[in-house]
């Protein structure tokens, strides 16, 4: 990695995902989101952070096109979202792998659904299996892998469809702490290499501050935006250094103080 000094003032990259006064009320009357407007900039990793009940996963699923919004609209790459689309790919909290399929087929599944010829899609899948560090596991089945490795498969599957926007729903919450740290470091590298837009949902403040260019803090019940934090932490050096960076520590502390009031 090059240790290039960051240009101090930069024109903000264009917004690839625009959320325009989106609200969501579930059947039964639970109001999950109220009038949320938000831009996600191209090539950045933006985190939706908040306590449970703040609607962060709901918002992600609306952007993914998996559930409809009750009001407002989401624009991705210039088009209004009416359902899932090839420019978006999702990484699931519980991995959502097909237990009857090998790693190779799981990773190639998005392309398989699009009708990409077998040889071609498997070549693409192999490339991304290598990229997430699972080379040699192509013909294993999910139940033969650890939780961390399974999520790497989920990540490779989302990368293989070459979407512009990656939506990650608490992707590291089901893996153990050590694996999680390694994942966070790998994710930073991935953001640098892949130049995709990442939308990341987490309830871990440390994780959010560690990986994000931008953190959107959400209020619970009903979900609204409470504030937006852009931690100014150099990410091009040693990944371990970030955890000792004073800005990192201060940002974590500031967010914690802000969120504390919502705890009972």
């Amino acid at each position, binding site marked *: 990695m090059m240790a290039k000094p960051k240009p101090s003032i930069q024109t903000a990259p264009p917004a690839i995902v625009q959320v325009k006064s989106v609200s969501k009320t579930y059947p039964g009357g639970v109001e999950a989101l109220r009038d949320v407007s938000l831009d996600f900039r191209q090539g950045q990793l933006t985190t939706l952070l908040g306590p449970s009940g703040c609607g962060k996963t709901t918002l992600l699923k609306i952007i993914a096109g998996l559930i409809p919004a009750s009001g407002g609209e989401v624009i991705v790459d210039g088009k209004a979202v009416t359902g899932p689309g090839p420019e978006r790919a999702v990484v699931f909290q*519980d991995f959502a792998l097909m237990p009857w399929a090998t790693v190779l087929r799981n990773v190639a599944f998005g392309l398989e659904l699009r009708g990409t010829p077998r040889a071609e899609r498997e070549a693409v899948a192999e490339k991304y299996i290598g990229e997430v560090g699972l080379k040699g596991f192509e013909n294993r089945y999910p139940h033969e892998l650890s939780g961390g490795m399974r999520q790497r498969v989920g990540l490779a599957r989302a990368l293989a469809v070459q979407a512009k926007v990656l939506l990650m729903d608490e992707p590291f919450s089901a893996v153990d702490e050590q694996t999680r740290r390694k994942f966070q470091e790998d994710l930073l590298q991935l953001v640098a290499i892949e130049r995709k837009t990442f939308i990341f949902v987490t309830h871990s403040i440390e994780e959010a501050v560690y990986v994000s260019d931008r953190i959107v803090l959400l209020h619970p019940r009903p979900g609204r935006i409470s504030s937006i934090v852009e931690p100014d932490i150099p990410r091009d050096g040693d990944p371990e250094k970030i955890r000792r960076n004073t800005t990192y520590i201060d940002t974590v502390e500031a967010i914690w103080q802000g969120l504390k009031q919502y705890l009972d």
Partner: protein
Amino acid sequence: MKIGGFRIPMAASLIVWAVLWEVVGRTGASLIIPPLSAILARMFEIVPTPSFGAALLITGKAFLLGNAISIGVGVPLGILLGRSTIADRMILPWVTMFLSAPLSALVPVIMVIFGLGQTTIVMTVVMFAVWIIVLDTRAGVQGIAPSLVEMAQSFGASRWQAFTRIYFFAALPEILSGIRLGLIRAVKGVIIGQLLVSIVGFGSLFEIYLSRFLMEHFWALLFILFALAFAINEILVWLERKVEYYASSRH
């Protein structure tokens, strides 16, 4: 179980009952119960006969065809019920009703519709087997992790792709146990059908044996059918075990 320090396998109890049967049979207390040894000898006598072969063939045909129809109809229908609330509301009451209904009483109705022949037997098999397959498949589909369904959607799966590549495989353990229970019910169906029509397959054999009071033949045939049903069950249990790892990876 342990007696006097020796481990006694469960199947040992069968030996006790077999000995008891033999003793009762030899006393000649009842004409209905011939000695077990005579029944076993009769089994080996019956099996190579052409009448047994013909009965086995025609029964096997009805059994296989009936099950093929049951699986072909039951699995897609079960998937549909598991995924569509409307279809579920419309059809589930009928499925549960037929599952618990005394189906033997319906065989005469089937006979009126399809006549005295193989078609009636096949339809009886379907009537016995299909409902449990529908119900188990439905349960399997409803048990699919929601994230797997969302995964298929988010990667742009069409309805057909979701059915054939996700729902079917995800529900496979339940589908297989439904098929296993269906096959066992189908054994009942094929025999009850043949007994009621009584001019086909094992039904006609039973009819001949009973009308001439050949109790040894009767028991021998019954034992063979028991053994066949048991073997079918065991094969399916083995198959189910091969997909057991699915269930462990569910949430």
